[in-house]
C-alpha cells in the first residue's frame, strides 16, 4: 500500500535546454493543448511548466459543470465542440472521465429573464445545441425537490433546459490528459515556475524558469488566473482582465435527490449532486481583485439562504468543505485567445472567468492547430485581444454585471 509514489505521467523528467514548444501552466488548457499537439500534429517535444502541481488551479477547483448554452454565435460552437469531445476523449485516453450528461436546468425568475432565455435558446438551437424553454411545472417534473410556490423571494417562472450538459469528473480529466500527453512524449515539469519570457526583435526566444533556461520559439501562456499577471509583468502587455475569487462548497452526503445541474441567476447559485451524494454548490464572487483563494463565511450564508428557498429540503443540511479559486474576468465575459500578434511565437489563452473547465477540450484542440501551423483558426479569431480597441466586445452577458470596475 505504501509503495513509492509513481505518477501516471511518468517520473520527473530532466529539464532540457530547448523545446519545440513551451506551455506555461499545467492546467486543463495547457494539458489539452499539449495532448493535441502531440497526438494530432506530431509535435512531441513539448514542455509543460507548472509552478505548483498539475490541476492545482481552476482545473481542480471548479464545480465540474459542463454545458454549451452560451449566449453568442461565436461562443456556442466552441462550447458545443468541447461538450462533444468528452465521450471521444474518454475512449481515446482509455480513462473514465465520468461524463454524466444529466442536463442543466437554468431557473428563470421573471418574465424579463424568460425573454432573455428565449434568445439564448434560439441561438443554441440555431447552432444545433439542444435547449428548450420549459415552465415551472415541467421544471418541477424534472426536479421534484424544486419549490415552485409563489412565496419565495424570487418565484420560479420557468427554466432553460439544456439536456446535453452535465458534469465531468475534473481530476480525471487532469490525470487522463496528463497521462495521454506524457505517453506521447510531452514532458510535464511540476514545481517549476516560469520567471521570465525572453523576446528578441519581436520574437519569442525562450523561457527562464527557477530550474534553468529553456530555448524555444513558441510559448503558450495558459496559467489561468495568473496569466494576466505573468503577461503584464514579463512582457509588459496589459490585458483587460480582473482576477477575482470564486467560492464553492459541498454539503454532507445525502440520498440522491438532484439528477440535474440546477442553477439560478437571480439567486446567484448553482448546484449539482455528486456521485458521493454531496450537493456541490457555487456562489457569486467577491467583486474585488485578489489572489488569495481564501473563503468567507459570507458565502456559506448566501448559499444556505438561496438553496433553502428553491430547494427547501436542504434546510438544515450542513456544509462540509469550502474552497475557492481564481476567475480572470474580462469586461465582455468572453476569453482572450490570441497568438503571433503582439510577439511572434507568443500564444495567449486566458480571460476564461469561470468557463475554463467546460471549454478546455476544444480550446486545446484549436490552440494545438494554431501553434502547429501558425494560422489563426477561424473559430478563435473573434476572441482576439484587439477586439477591445476595435470596440467589438462580445455580448456574453445579457445584462451588465458588477464583477469588476469595468462596468
Amino acid at each position, binding site marked *: 500500500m505504501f509503495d513509492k509514489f509513481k505518477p501516471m505521467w511518468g517520473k520527473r523528467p530532466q529539464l532540457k535546454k530547448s523545446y519545440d514548444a513551451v506551455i506555461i501552466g499545467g492546467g486543463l488548457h495547457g494539458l489539452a493543448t499539449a495532448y493535441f499537439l502531440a497526438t494530432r500534429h506530431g509535435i512531441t517535444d513539448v514542455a509543460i511548466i507548472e509552478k505548483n502541481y498539475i490541476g492545482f488551479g481552476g482545473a481542480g477547483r471548479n464545480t465540474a459543470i459542463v454545458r454549451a448554452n452560451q449566449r453568442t454565435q461565436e461562443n456556442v460552437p466552441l462550447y458545443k465542440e468541447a461538450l462533444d469531445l468528452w465521450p471521444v476523449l474518454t475512449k481515446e485516453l482509455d480513462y473514465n472521465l465520468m461524463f454524466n450528461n444529466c442536463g442543466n436546468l437554468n431557473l428563470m425568475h421573471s418574465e424579463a429573464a424568460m425573454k432573455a432565455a428565449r434568445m439564448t435558446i434560439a441561438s443554441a438551437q440555431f447552432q444545433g445545441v439542444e435547449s428548450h424553454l420549459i415552465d415551472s411545472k415541467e421544471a418541477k417534473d424534472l426536479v421534484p425537490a424544486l419549490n415552485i410556490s409563489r412565496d419565495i423571494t424570487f418565484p420560479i417562472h420557468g427554466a432553460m433546459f439544456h439536456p446535453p450538459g452535465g458534469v465531468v469528473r475534473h481530476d480525471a480529466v487532469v490525470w487522463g490528459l496528463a497521462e495521454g500527453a506524457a505517453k506521447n512524449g510531452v514532458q510535464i515539469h511540476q514545481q517549476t515556475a516560469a520567471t521570465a519570457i525572453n523576446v528578441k526583435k519581436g520574437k519569442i526566444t525562450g523561457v527562464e524558469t527557477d530550474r534553468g533556461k529553456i530555448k524555444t520559439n513558441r510559448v503558450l501562456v495558459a496559467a489561468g488566473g495568473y496569466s494576466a499577471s505573468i503577461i503584464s509583468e514579463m512582457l509588459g502587455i*496589459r490585458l483587460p482582465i480582473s482576477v477575482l475569487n470564486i467560492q464553492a462548497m459541498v454539503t454532507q452526503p445525502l440520498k440522491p435527490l438532484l439528477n440535474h445541474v440546477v442553477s439560478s441567476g437571480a439567486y446567484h447559485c448553482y448546484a449539482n449532486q455528486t456521485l458521493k451524494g454531496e450537493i456541490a454548490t457555487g456562489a457569486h464572487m467577491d467583486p474585488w*481583485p485578489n489572489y488569495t483563494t481564501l473563503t468567507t463565511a*459570507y458565502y456559506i450564508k448566501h448559499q444556505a439562504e438561496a438553496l433553502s428557498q428553491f430547494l427547501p429540503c436542504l434546510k438544515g443540511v450542513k456544509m462540509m468543505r469550502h474552497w475557492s479559486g481564481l476567475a480572470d474576468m474580462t469586461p465582455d465575459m468572453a476569453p482572450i485567445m490570441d497568438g503571433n500578434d503582439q510577439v511572434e511565437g507568443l500564444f495567449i489563452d486566458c480571460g476564461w472567468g469561470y468557463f475554463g473547465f467546460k471549454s478546455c477540450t476544444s480550446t486545446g484542440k484549436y490552440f494545438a492547430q494554431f501553434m502547429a501551423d501558425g494560422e489563426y483558426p477561424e473559430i478563435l479569431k473573434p476572441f482576439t485581444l484587439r477586439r477591445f480597441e476595435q470596440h467589438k466586445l462580445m455580448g456574453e452577458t445579457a445584462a451588465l454585471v458588477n464583477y469588476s*470596475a469595468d462596468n
Partner: protein
Amino acid sequence: MALTISCPICGKRNGYEFRYGGEDKGPKPAEKDLTPEKWVDYVHMNNCVAGVQKEWWFHRDGCGSWFTIHRDTVTNLEVEQEEDHEKA
C-alpha cells in the same frame, strides 16, 4: 479572509460596504490626439499585480467617498504606503 477597508471619513469598515473602483490609472487621457489604443489602455487594461497595488474604492453603503488605498492582492490586506510604487 474577510476584507476591511479604511475609509478616510468612516475609518476601518467591512469590505462588503465598499465597491471596488479599479486600479489607479492616473488622470483620464487628454481628448486631443487620443487614439483607440490609448483609450482602451485607460478604460480596460489592467496590470493585474499579484502583490501591492494602488486602487480606488467607493464607500457605497456609507459616506459615499471615493478614495485610494494600497492593498496586497495576495493577502487581501491593506498596506500602509506613502509613495506610489506603480510605474505609470
